[in-house]
Structure formats: structure tokens, C-alpha cells
């Protein structure tokens, strides 16, 4: 394999990791309240801006890595409390409108207070150092991002599968009435899933800024949409599905850009959404999704 191809695959895995981090939250939120949350991508942007602010304030990087997910968690939970709790159980179309409104509101508040000028963002230099991985050299950050992603995904999955609170969240996502009758606190379970989703998206935002060097208030929307695509490809409601969907999408996008003649590179999003249509034609419930009817 040529070095060029290997580098492209690594780029794809990095981008896929970021999609996966956002997609997990997307999937959890849909799973628990059946809400397609178009504002979810904006938590990525909030994570990125939080990171820049903290770095400018002179905080050490390890602390930044701890605070960003905490801020993401609080932001996710807060958005749920303010905007989405009131419409819980409303028809899906109401959800669409409200999540889009929240997305636009968040973006414009950021534009209002921070301005539209893109800001530079850079990780410390050792993140960019190249390390030898067999015959090829890889930037440190391209190892860190997929590694951290997989650790966070596995932790989230383990939390949802094995802990008391995680099981309660799955119970709520399956049958709210029965969950209430067991005394499970529904509001807390829903808020928690928004919080976890927000924390993961904020970490993705931190990585996004560091990897691509620039951040702006509208940066979250397209990654949010693509994470939605990743979620659908993987099968909505499944955490492993969201991760696989993220990587499939990231790799496909980079390989389209990298391998096709350069004049097609500008059309990368065409191929992304074409892939979505193809997957849905062959497997309407995504790669890992279960038929909704099977839940009866």
C-alpha cells in the first residue's frame, strides 16, 4: 500500500472518530425520546469554543480535556431542560421544528456574542509530532483521536449496558409507562442521555478544532447533519451502530476526496449523502438497527 493511501485511511479514521462521537449522542437521544436533534451538532461547536476560551485563559491542557466534556454535559442537559422537556411526547414534526429552532438560536447567540470571525485553534506541538508506526509516520493526534473515541464509546456502551442507571435509561427508551411504574426517574434518565451526548460532542469539538485548526459559530451544523447520517447508516438507537456508521462515513468521505481526481473533491458531500441513500435502499433500518415493530 502506498504511503498516500495509508495517510488517507488514517485521515478517514480521524474524521470518522469525530462523526462517531457526535453520532453516539444523536443515537442515544433518539433512542430515549424519539427526537431527531438537529441542535446536537452545535454542542460540538460549544465544546470547541470552550476549549479555546480555556486555553486563552491559560489553563493547562490536561485540565482543558477534563473541563470541556463537563461543559458539554451541562450544555446538553440544559438544552434538554429548557427546550425539549416541554415537547416530550409531542408529534415528531414538532420535534423537528423545535430542534432546528434551538440550533439556529444557539448559532446566532454565539454569532452575537463572539462574532462570526473564525478563530485559530492549535494543540500543543507534541500533538503534531510524527511517530513511526511500522513503515509509515503518523501524527500523534491521529492516533490519539481514534484511541480516545474508542475508549469513550466503550465506556458509554458499558455504562448503558451494565450500570443500574444505564439499564434505567434503556428501560425508559423502550417503555416510558412501565419505567414510571418501577419508580424510575424519567426526567433524570432523559437529561442524563442529553448530558452524555453533549459531553461526547464537546470532546469531538475539541478534537475538531485542534485537528483542522479553525473554529466558528456555524462549524457544528454540517458535522451534526453528517453524524445524523452516520447514525442512520449504523441503525438509529444503537451505540455500536453509531460508531461503525461514523467510521464508514468518515472513511468514505476521505477516500472519495483522496482517490477521485481532484476536480471531484469539492463534491464530497454529494458522495456522503449518496452513500446514505444507497445504505437505506439496501438496509432501510441501517446496518445495526432493529425493526421498530420488533419491539412490540
Amino acid at each position, binding site marked *: 500500500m502506498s504511503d498516500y493511501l495509508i495517510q488517507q485511511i488514517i485521515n478517514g479514521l480521524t474524521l470518522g472518530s469525530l462523526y462517531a462521537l457526535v453520532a453516539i449522542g444523536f443515537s442515544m437521544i433518539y433512542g430515549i425520546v424519539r427526537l431527531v436533534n438537529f441542535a446536537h451538532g452545535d454542542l460540538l461547536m460549544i465544546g470547541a469554543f470552550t476549549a479555546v476560551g480555556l486555553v486563552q485563559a491559560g489553563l493547562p491542557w490536561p485540565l482543558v480535556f477534563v473541563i470541556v466534556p463537563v461543559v458539554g454535559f451541562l450544555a446538553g442537559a440544559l438544552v434538554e431542560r429548557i427546550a425539549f422537556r416541554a415537547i416530550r411526547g409531542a408529534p415528531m414534526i414538532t420535534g423537528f421544528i423545535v430542534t432546528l429552532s434551538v440550533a439556529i438560536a444557539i448559532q446566532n447567540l454565539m454569532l452575537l456574542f463572539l462574532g462570526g470571525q473564525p478563530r485559530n485553534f492549535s494543540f500543543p506541538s507534541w500533538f503534531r509530532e510524527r511517530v513511526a508506526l511500522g513503515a509509515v509516520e503518523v501524527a500523534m493526534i491521529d492516533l490519539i483521536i481514534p484511541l480516545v473515541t474508542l475508549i469513550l464509546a466503550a465506556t458509554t456502551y458499558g455504562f448503558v449496558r451494565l450500570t443500574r442507571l444505564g439499564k*434505567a435509561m*434503556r428501560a425508559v427508551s423502550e417503555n416510558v*409507562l*412501565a419505567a*414510571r411504574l*418501577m419508580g424510575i426517574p424519567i426526567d433524570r434518565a432523559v437529561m442524563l442521555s442529553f448530558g452524555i451526548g453533549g459531553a461526547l460532542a464537546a470532546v469531538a469539538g475539541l478534537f475538531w478544532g485542534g485537528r483542522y485548526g479553525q473554529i466558528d459559530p456555524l462549524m457544528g451544523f454540517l458535522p451534526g447533519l453528517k453524524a445524523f447520517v452516520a447514525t442512520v447508516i449504523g441503525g438509529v438507537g444503537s451505540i455500536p451502530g453509531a460508531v461503525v456508521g461514523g467510521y464508514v462515513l468518515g472513511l468514505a468521505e476521505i477516500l472519495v476526496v483522496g482517490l477521485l481526481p481532484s476536480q471531484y473533491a469539492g463534491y464530497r458531500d454529494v458522495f456522503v449523502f449518496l452513500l446514505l441513500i444507497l445504505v437505506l435502499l439496501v438496509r432501510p433500518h441501517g446496518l445495526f438497527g432493529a425493526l421498530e415493530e420488533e419491539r412490540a
Partner: protein
Amino acid sequence: MLSLQDVHVRRGRTHVLRGLSLTVGEGEIVTLIGPNGAGKSTTLMTISGLLPVSEGELQWEDGDARLDLARSSPAAIVGAGIIHCPEGRQVFARLTVQENLELGGYLVTDVAGRRRMLHEVYQRFPVLAERRGYPAGSLSGGEQMMLALGRALMARPRLLLLDEPSLGLAPRIVEEIVELLQALHRERGVAILLIEQNAMLALEFAQRGYVLEQGRIVESGSAAELGDHPRIRQAYLGVAG
């Protein structure tokens, strides 16, 4: 133990319960029969705190513990030992049998007690022990009913609210369920408030009964009295005169 006094409940624009009063004593089996739409399920949902009460009193007394059910959250009501087995069983289909049972004991914080209870449930319902690792959705209707009962048992009920436990089950399975409930009542002293479309079955199983029509109690008495009442025989037992 449980007493409802002149309870009114509205759902949307419909005035469903119109001054309903009933009591369930310690360790008693009471049934509520009545036509569709009379408000039977609404009564149970009101007791478990799922619906707001517009008027009336709902009191719970268990030893020294007292609870005003009209002003309590579903979680507090579950915590007091009033456990509602809803219509249609409502098991968590994609969770395993064991996870369903664990969630039944969600509010039981004492780990050793929870483990003991799980052990007891598996003894009472051996079929659940055999299938503990399978998703609940893969169980048959009768097994799902047992799971719903086992899940209720995990919360250490003092009063079980049962909504149509025989619905959609074969007569042989229903018999088995009734035997399990009787054992539960005998051995643990659990009180039961039962809604059942099969009024014959309900009056055989219960000690006392109420007839609910249009949100009000229209008859009450021992199960034997109700079973002999000409109007009830005609309306609910399908016996002429």
C-alpha cells in the same frame, strides 16, 4: 390499608371518575369489575400516581407509614409498596429477563435484599430462571405475564394492582397464573386489587368486589354476593336472570 374517597379524575375533557370510593384492607383480594370505559384502568393509574386527581382523597396506611397518594410521585408510591402491573404486561422487550427483574427492584437500595428477592422470584417462576439471559420479547405471552409479576414482586409489594392479567392467555396458563397469585397472597400476605374482564374468574379469586359503571361504584359486596346478584349475573357473567 388503601382508601379512596369521592375521587374525581378528568382525562382531557372527559370526566372519567365521578366520585369513586373504595377500600382495600390489609392482605385482602378485591376485584373491580365493570364494562369497558367505566374507568377501571383509570382507577389503577390514579392510585399509582400517573394521573392528577381533581377532587377527593386517596390515603395509604401501612403500619406506621402513611401516604397521601394524590400528592405523591409515582416513585414515592412504588416506594411505599403499591406496585402496578399494567395492562398488556409492558415488559421491556429488548432487555433480558434478568434486566427486567432488576429494574423491577430499581428503588430497593439494599443489594443483599435485592439478590434474595431475585432468588425468590426465580424459585416461584422457574421458567424465568431458565430464560434469564434471553430478551423478554422472545418469551411467550404466559411467560411475559410471569415476568411482569416477577418484576412487580422485585419491588416488595404490599399491594399489587393487576390490570387484566388474563388478557390474551390460554385458559391453562391463566389457571397457572391464578395459582401463583394465590401462593403470593398466602405466603407473603400481599393485598391485591384486580381488574379483570373475565368477571367469573375475578369473583372466584377475590374475597370482595366492586362494580364500577361510568366512574362510580354501583354495587359492592363479598365475591359470593356479587356472584349471586341477578343484575351482575346478567351483565357480567353472561347468565340470564
